[in-house]
């Protein structure tokens, strides 16, 4: 089995595991609902604040989901000794990382696409766009922003979840390690999303999107290169 097959096999395995156990889906749906609900309640009195907070709430929900999903993806393998078997395989460690990354990214992106209209509806935010900018384009860039943002988040989450998987205090350590690193993604994603949803400002969104894409590129290389030092039996 060559490397690409290994990556896809691992991604598929993780997704099937999730489809069966639904552990991540249940947890993330619950947390997303709580996040969106609580923040809506907090902003509730002020419709302007609601509209401007919509994307922030969305990304907070996605961030929680990303951490849960990444942690669970390693835990499930750790429990049955499946992780050791996986690592004993003659494929580069990076392939294991890449497979899990794809699965997690996929899940988060789907969640993002689902939450987007929900957040929009709940917070009264609408896809903006003056006359010149077609709404379809704005939506497309918005979806791309979600994908780029969740990719960056998943890159770090899956990486650090793997690192902390067999350390003590892993549940508290994962967010402590992750969050200072993902601050730029969260900031950029929220700002880009806000620019698109509020006024359809493609230029402003593009400025932030460049930061997201740059982050994704740099960390794709860094994480793939360093992953083999992270999981050792």
């Amino acid at each position, binding site marked *: 089995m060559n490397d690409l097959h290994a990556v896809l096999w691992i991604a598929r395995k993780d997704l099937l595991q999730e489809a069966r156990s639904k552990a991540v889906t249940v947890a993330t749906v619950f947390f997303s609902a709580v996040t969106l609900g609580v923040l809506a309640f907090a902003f509730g009195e002020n419709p302007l604040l609601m509209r401007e907070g919509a994307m922030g709430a969305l990304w907070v929900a996605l961030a929680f989901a990303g951490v849960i999903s990444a942690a669970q993806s390693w835990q499930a393998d750790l429990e049955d000794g499946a992780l050791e078997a996986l690592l004993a395989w003659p494929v580069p460690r990076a392939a294991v990382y890449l497979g899990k990354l794809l699965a997690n990214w996929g899940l988060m992106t789907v969640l993002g696409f689902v939450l987007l209209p929900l957040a929009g509806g709940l917070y009264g935010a609408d896809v903006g766009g003056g006359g010149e900018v077609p709404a379809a384009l704005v939506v497309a860039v918005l979806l791309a922003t979600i994908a780029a943002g969740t990719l960056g988040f998943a890159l770090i989450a899956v990486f650090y979840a793997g*690192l902390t998987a067999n350390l003590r205090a892993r549940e508290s350590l994962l967010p*402590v390690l992750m969050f200072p690193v993902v601050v730029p993604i969260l*900031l950029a994603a929220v*700002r880009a999303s806000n620019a698109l949803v509020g006024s359809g400002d493609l230029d402003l969104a593009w400025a932030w999107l460049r930061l997201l894409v740059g982050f994704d590129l740099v960390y794709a290389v860094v994480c793939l290169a360093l992953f083999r030092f992270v999981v050792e039996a």
Partner: protein
Amino acid sequence: MIDAAARLRRPLWLRTYLGITLLLFLAAAAFGLVFSPRDVTQGDLIRIMYAHVSVAWIAFVAVGLTAVFGALYLWRGQRRDDVLAVASGEMGLFFAGLTIIGGMTYSRPTLNTFWTWDAKLTLTAIMVALMVGYFIVRGLIDDPVRRGRVSAVVAIVAAASLPFNYLAAEWFRTLHPAKSVALDGSGVTMDGTMLAVLLFNTVVAGMIYLGFMIDRVRLGRVEAALEEERAQAVTQPAPVGKEVVRV
């Protein structure tokens, strides 16, 4: 057997270096406090800038070097690189923390608040969080090789985040009206003397970093050597007829 006490005593060259550094620090303080002009806007408060900005620059250098030494350790696997990494990491945390405190001391009298989301200060706060994570991870791993490798990875990921964090914080800020006084000294019209004093203070801070590093690395090397000695003692077979107490 290692004579730890002898190896921990400072040799003459080190004591000389530290003595010179102390004198230069006093000189730099004299220049900063006495032999430099007041600022047009900030008055004497500009003198805080010399203490604060010099330390900030060294903090970033220290964290960057932690990642570099970590990368060296990943590449060559020599314990001394890990000792260098953890020493520089301690320096990074120390100088970054000092920068935050200095920043707050500078900010309160000039901007009337202890904290602004100034890009450089925000970045320094994030850096403190990153380095705390580095040391938590080190504390959780007992095997020195694995500890060195995993913490090197954490340091590299952390250092790589700094440019992105800076850009994010900076762009976040430019959407809001910028204050007229910047805490990094850039909003100040610095005349030649001020710049010279700042550079002198920065060089001295760098010398202090180096001095602390040498001290810390010497300590780290003895720790590592003793750790290896202990590990070997445990794996040696017990002499026949005698009980061996496992330490």
